[in-house]
């Protein structure tokens, strides 16, 4: 099904034909990685997978709006597309899924998609919802104190915005105008709890006023729309004008993780209808309409991405798992203590 695509008169600042194609490639790569994760899970090869499907556009759009190599990201566990668009490789992603000893994120200690990639300016996160939001604010504060022109992107789902710490973080950020961008990827469900049981308001962005910062809503299934909004917020932050709360409306195509079954709380019709919102065919159409891409290139990209995912899978599966000797590493700076 070909969805409606919007015609844009001119491209937003910083977006070229090449970057648009790159964005598309990243989305395709992420989807294939995501599919591979669930395939491995169903094969019994990995015990756990968390999906990104439905979020690819918002995350890739946001990633491209940052200054790569300078700006920092404090993500959450659904940000596979964001990671793969901000320098993380498919091999690194698969190493994490297989919980290998040389897994860059955590040496096999964390659940999948709990990123930590210093090389890519991606900070370490845990499974504790919203605990990372204050960290992002603290990082932004540090860059501000050191007068470095670094912006910190902090992402989270709409469920996070119920945690007290989320509010404390935005409160502080607004008071001190820290150079941060808060990006809520609202996929309408926190596991099984729908938005209307999560908050009394229609938009997460409406909370921004309570913290004295601007709140902006965008279509999270449109990478260019998300890019535009995030880019503007990043510039504001870099110019010392303080943080912005962005709500990218998207959806969650699959269950929360491999341990969830959304058929228990969503109707089959509802789940089926989600397919019409898939950002990848939508972006494909948008790019084709404007002559940025043709079918041949699309096929090439898909083939290349699949090859990357296959290579990464085979390679990661061969790598060594951690052993008992690795139990006490990285406990303190000087090794394990009594």
């Amino acid at each position, binding site marked *: 099904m070909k969805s409606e695509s919007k015609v844009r008169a001119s491209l937003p600042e910083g977006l070229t034909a090449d970057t648009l194609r790159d964005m598309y490639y990243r989305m395709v790569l992420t989807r294939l990685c995501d599919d591979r994760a669930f395939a491995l899970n169903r094969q019994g090869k990995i015990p756990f997978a968390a999906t990104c499907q439905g979020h690819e556009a918002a995350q890739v759009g946001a990633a491209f709006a940052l200054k790569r190599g300078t700006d920092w990201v404090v993500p959450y566990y659904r940000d596979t597309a964001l990671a793969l668009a901000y320098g993380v490789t498919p091999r690194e992603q698969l190493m994490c899924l297989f919980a290998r000893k040389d897994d860059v994120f955590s040496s096999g200690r964390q659940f999948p998609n709990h990123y*930590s990639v210093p090389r890519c300016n991606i900070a370490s996160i845990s499974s*504790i919802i919203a*605990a990372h939001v204050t960290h992002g604010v*603290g990082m932004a504060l540090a860059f501000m104190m050191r007068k470095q022109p670094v912006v910190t992107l902090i992402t989270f789902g709409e469920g996070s915005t119920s945690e007290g710490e989320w509010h404390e973080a935005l409160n*502080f950020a607004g008071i001190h105008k820290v150079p941060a961008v808060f990006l809520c990827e609202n996929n309408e469900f926190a596991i099984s709890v729908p938005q209307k049981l999560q908050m009394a308001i229609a938009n997460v962005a409406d909370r921004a006023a309570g913290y004295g910062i601007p709140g902006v809503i965008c279509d999270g299934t449109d990478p260019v729309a998300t890019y535009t909004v995030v880019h503007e917020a990043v510039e504001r932050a870099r110019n010392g004008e303080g943080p912005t709360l962005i709500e990218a409306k998207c959806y969650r195509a699959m269950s929360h993780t491999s341990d969830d079954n959304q058929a228990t709380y969503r109707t089959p019709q509802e789940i089926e209808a989600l397919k019409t919102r898939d950002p990848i065919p939508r972006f494909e159409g948008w790019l084709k309409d404007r002559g940025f891409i043709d079918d041949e290139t699309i096929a090439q990209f898909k083939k290349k991405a699949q090859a990357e995912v296959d290579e990464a899978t085979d390679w990661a599966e061969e790598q060594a798992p951690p052993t008992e000797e690795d139990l006490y590493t990285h406990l303190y700076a000087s090794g394990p203590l009594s």
Partner: protein
Amino acid sequence: MPVKTVLEGVRDAMHDEMKRDPRVFIMGEDVGPRGNVFLITKGFLEEFGRDRVIDTPLAEASIVGIAVGAAMAGMRPIAEIQFADFIYPAYNQIVGEAAKIRYRSAGGNTCPLVVRTPYGGGVRGALSHSVSVEALFYHVPGLKICVPSTPADAQGMLVSAIRDEDPVLFLEHKRTYRLIKGEVPEGDYTVPIGKADIARPGKDLSVITYGLMRHFAVEAAEKVASEGVDAEVIDLRTVRPMDRAAVLESVRKTRRALIVHEDQKFGGVGAEISATIAEEALFDLDAPIRRVCGPDVPAMGYAKEYEEAFMPSPERIAGAMRELAEF
């Protein structure tokens, strides 16, 4: 050598480190113009500016959480929790996050953070200004927990904590702030974290203690010395990592162990010390391990009688020393 109070030691440690290292800053409630509710940071705002002496909103979880982020980004934050009784909202950030960052990222991120807070009773602080919290945290690998009780230790260990690459929970016994005075060496002076101090050498029994109780134990030891009981007092100074070697060496020498802490008895630090001694020095023990601790009630009450019933006194400690010596 200058003589200072514990409070002055804490103040000077922070002041000198902030002068020496531009990465060090303080965030907490009332640390700015008010100078902290005990006047510890008096003058800091004028000297170091608003950027480095930050009055935070009344939100403990984010006081620590934001400090965690700043530490991850290479700063050396000192997060102050106004009273240890208020630390519980920050438990998530201290235990769930700060303690695990290095381990969970395999060294990709680190968290050189200090969380400072006053604890303990003896100031008529009642149920919510008197608790001891070390037992809630010392269970957690990845954290270090300091409990100095002399001005020299407070100053030297706080400098060590600020310079430490790992998160340190720095617990200051509020009764010692102005009560305890002592000499502190001049210049760049540190005391290592994780090393106990022999507050009083002896041969008849080993008292293992920390905090205000160190001073009470020494007082009790002097009292029973005239009765022929020679007690050795070991001030742990750090609750994690614990100086097990010092404890075991002392107990192997005296063969009798008395643990004293103000915190409630059940599941307190004394339980771990007891288990360690029993595991490693059972055949050197000439008497059961003894603990003198706070009672197992939720907290210390406001009435003087409640506070006195809660806090171990030198008399009570001396009584336990006598009983142990004659066992």
